[in-house]
């Protein structure tokens, strides 16, 4: 018996079974009891059921990605989140600490080390002065180093958070915390929450797309764009700028578009048949997903193709079609947002500058990484701006934590290159676009850039503000799981009013 025959046989038996008396007596005991309760439990009310059979279902029953309005008017309708995996050094990019330069090479004061744990630093390390040259830019006078010469020209579009803190100092947990609000596995990522709350605007594209560059995916694995306890349709869909945009989306050789269409039609008509029998909305959701996948096959390769962009745009971003690069991903992010994708998440790997090799050094490798993102990020902001998309798109930039003002001394030994250890006490992030106050700066760190001394913000505060801009009250946006409502911000989070327009 081949596969198809077996399936058909199974289907036939199942159908018969639903009619036999033995099956009724065996399997339906509980249901007969339930039937007696039906008038009491209003959800089982036959009238209600009859109604839903007459297709009086909400859009969400049929299509879990159907759009929904947010509770209150949003400032942004899409998000582009640029995550620099590995954690860039705030002290070389944004947090200018001239005092630290004076103490360069001197032993770190005991008071900073007492009772603290570091990922690799042991004993008493030396302080490491900023390796970059800083200057103030724009009307806002924001400090940006010469590592980001292009970005310096758009600082007036951006609001800086200069005293972000996290309590995680290892990549995996810290990335999870930054993306899901919890350092442990199992929570939905920001993108999943947003897609769950708002659905997708473009019927032919997923609501949450993930693009990675830098040669590796984040340390925490795909859970950073996972849907946790939310239904899995809300997880991020990873697309690639090299090769097939979505794995397994392309039809196998010999399968034509027409054949595919008739296959899906056949499957859907059987599914419709069972829907008529059982009235289970899950079946309709299934039908919908087949159709969406079919439409995606056309639309995804189309938006993921950057070859047809004009030359000026390629020059602006510094893109090279066909390779996996952060620049390509930035351009794709714009295209996706333009096409109504809710949440575009970029991960760029390679920011973990410990000083153990040239690539991981603060004065060499980091410069290379900065060069890779400087032009694309600036281009992204400008391109969104010229198309008017920055009005309704929120752009977030940051790592999972920051880096120490001390030079790393792995195993108590001096490293071959200049590097900094993981540091969660104070680091810089920035946001731009819909609902963000242009040119704002919030947060103050001490003279070494070790701790935030004023206007500190937590990861939860950032999440609360992101949700706020999308039209949600983070305290009320919950999902019931294992007997209690869950929030992205757990039991914390305050809006960062000072950077909201």
């Amino acid at each position, binding site marked *: 018996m081949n596969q198809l025959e077996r399936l058909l046989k199974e289907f036939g038996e199942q159908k018969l079974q639903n009619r036999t008396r033995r099956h009724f007596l065996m399997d339906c005991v509980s249901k007969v009891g339930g039937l007696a309760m039906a008038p009491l439990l209003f959800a089982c009310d036959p009238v209600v059921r009859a109604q839903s059979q007459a297709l009086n279902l909400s859009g969400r029953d049929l299509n879990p990605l159907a759009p929904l309005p947010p509770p*209150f*008017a949003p400032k942004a309708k899409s998000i582009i989140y640029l995550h620099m995996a590995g954690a860039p050094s705030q002290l070389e990019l944004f947090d200018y600490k001239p005092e630290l330069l004076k103490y360069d090479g001197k032993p770190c004061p005991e008071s900073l080390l007492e009772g603290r744990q570091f990922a690799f630093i042991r004993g008493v390390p030396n302080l490491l002065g900023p390796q970059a040259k800083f200057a103030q830019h724009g009307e806002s006078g924001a400090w940006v180093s010469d590592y980001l010469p292009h970005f310096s*020209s758009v600082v007036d579009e951006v609001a800086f958070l200069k005293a972000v803190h996290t309590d995680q100092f290892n990549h995996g947990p810290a990335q999870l915390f930054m993306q899901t609000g919890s350092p442990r596995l199992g929570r939905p990522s920001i993108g999943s929450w947003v897609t769950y709350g708002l659905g997708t605007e473009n*019927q032919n594209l997923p609501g949450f797309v993930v693009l990675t560059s830098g040669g590796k995916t984040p340390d925490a694995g795909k859970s950073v764009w996972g849907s946790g306890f939310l239904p899995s349709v809300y997880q991020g869909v990873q697309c690639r700028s090299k090769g097939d945009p979505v794995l397994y989306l392309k039809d196998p050789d010999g399968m034509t578009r027409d054949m595919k269409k008739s296959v899906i039609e056949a499957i859907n008509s059987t599914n419709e048949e069972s829907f008529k029998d059982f009235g289970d909305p899950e079946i309709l959701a299934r039908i919908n997903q087949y159709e969406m996948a079919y439409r995606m096959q056309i639309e995804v390769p189309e938006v993921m193709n950057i070859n047809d962009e004009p030359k000026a745009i390629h020059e602006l971003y510094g893109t090279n079609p066909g390779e996996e690069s952060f620049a390509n991903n930035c351009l794709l992010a714009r295209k996706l947002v333009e096409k109504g994708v809710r949440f575009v998440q970029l991960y760029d790997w390679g920011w973990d500058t410990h000083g153990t090799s040239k690539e991981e050094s603060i004065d060499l490798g980091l410069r290379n990484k900065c060069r890779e993102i400087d032009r694309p990020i600036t281009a992204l902001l400008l*391109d969104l*701006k010229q*198309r*008017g998309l920055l*009005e309704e798109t929120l752009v977030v930039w940051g790592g999972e934590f920051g880096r120490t003002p001390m030079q790393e001394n792995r195993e108590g030994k001096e490293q071959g290159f200049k590097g900094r250890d993981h540091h969660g006490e104070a680091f810089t992030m920035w946001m731009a676009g819909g609902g963000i106050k242009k040119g704002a700066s919030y947060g103050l760190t001490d003279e070494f850039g070790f701790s935030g001394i004023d206007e500190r913000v937590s990861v939860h505060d950032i999440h609360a503000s992101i949700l706020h801009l999308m*039209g949600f009250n983070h305290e009320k946006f919950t999902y019931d799981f294992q007997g209690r409502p869950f929030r992205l911000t757990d039991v914390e989070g305050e809006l960062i009013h000072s950077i909201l327009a």
Partner: protein
Amino acid sequence: MEFILPLLGRFHPLFVHLPIGILLFGILLVFIPSKTNATFLPSIRIAFLVGFIVGLMSAISGFLQYQQEGYTWDTVQIHLILGWITVIFSLGLYFQFRKAQELTQPLKIQSGLIFLFITLTGHFGGNITHGEDYFLEVLPPGLLATFGIETQTVAQFTLDENSWEEALFYDGAIQPILNYNCSSCHNPRNLKGELDLSTIKGLMKGGENGEILKVGNLKESALYARLILPHEDEEHMPPAEKRQPRKEEVELIKIWIETGASVDKTLAQATVKRTSVQAFFRKEENPFFPITDLKPVSSDTLSILRGKGFFVEQISADNSLLRISCLNFPAFSEKDWKSLKEISEHITYLDLSDTKAPESIIDSISGLTHLTTLKLNGIEIEGKGLAKLKDSKNLKLLYLNSTALTLENLTQLDGHPSLEKVYIFKTPASGQEKRDFSFHLETGDFLLPKLASDTIVY
């Protein structure tokens, strides 16, 4: 032995439940139908006697509490008088039941009356401990409004951006902050911790542990010190489960204490910086999307539109205006406008980009009263009738990217009452010499210079 009286007083909340229960039991027996009309008389007598005794204990302990715990006469007045009436009344009834051979009509009426007294006494007692709006608090505002009850909420503290410097530090800032965050528990009627924060007098007087303000000394000023305790600390104020003041509010209290806790200085005289108060500036209540009282469009109508290919969604659950886009409907053309007509008042965001919308669509659009955002990117228009868009008095953002428009076309829009920005990236207009319009013109064509550092590999 000074503690005896206050201790007895504190038993009041315990005692009060006894007369309520026992007397109610007696009253119940009075009204339960029985064969002979006198079956329960012995039990009724006992109920009323015991009810009287525990009632008396409650009344006495209540009086002690009033004397010892700083309640004012105004607050307890009605409760106290009603309580004593109930006690005396129950004694009187007891004597009547003792004489009675059967349950007469007057006895029943009096029993009904005493029921009323117990209820009222209990209610007014509850008002003192739980606050007068104890029940009202949990009712939905809509319901209250239909009964004509106004829920008085203390407004959050705001300052006027232009004249904040002249506001008095205490009266204009600190007191409103305390009113909003603390007064619900610290007022003359509800003296938690024996502290009244509704006036400067109460604040200066302090609470059960003495003064709460030491000028210039933050650590010793409980008024501030308690606010910055960790939330899980028992002494943290306001209690952790209650709404917490904003960071900026706590900060301002700090500055007030540091700068001498003056009562008559203005914010400027106390050298308060603008950055310390800017969080309180009243936000211009000018939301991007207009607030209307239009009824939401029915879900049937929305489904029909979606079936046609439109993306249609309410701006938000609390705003019935609609966002409409032809993202998945590139075939949109003139005839499809008909289906939008019915909901034209609701349209506030309209994206017809890259569709087959013709020139004449502008005429139709100009009638949209609540339109704020219009996207016509990439459609084939000459832009002759753009002036008509001046009728859309809410239009703020206009997208005309990738069209054939020139600056001459756009002059028609100059002086538009609400238009803020017009996007004309990738049009002939973006190449033309800049002109000043009443709105911001975004021509785009951004370029980034080639820098030497772009190519240096370290």
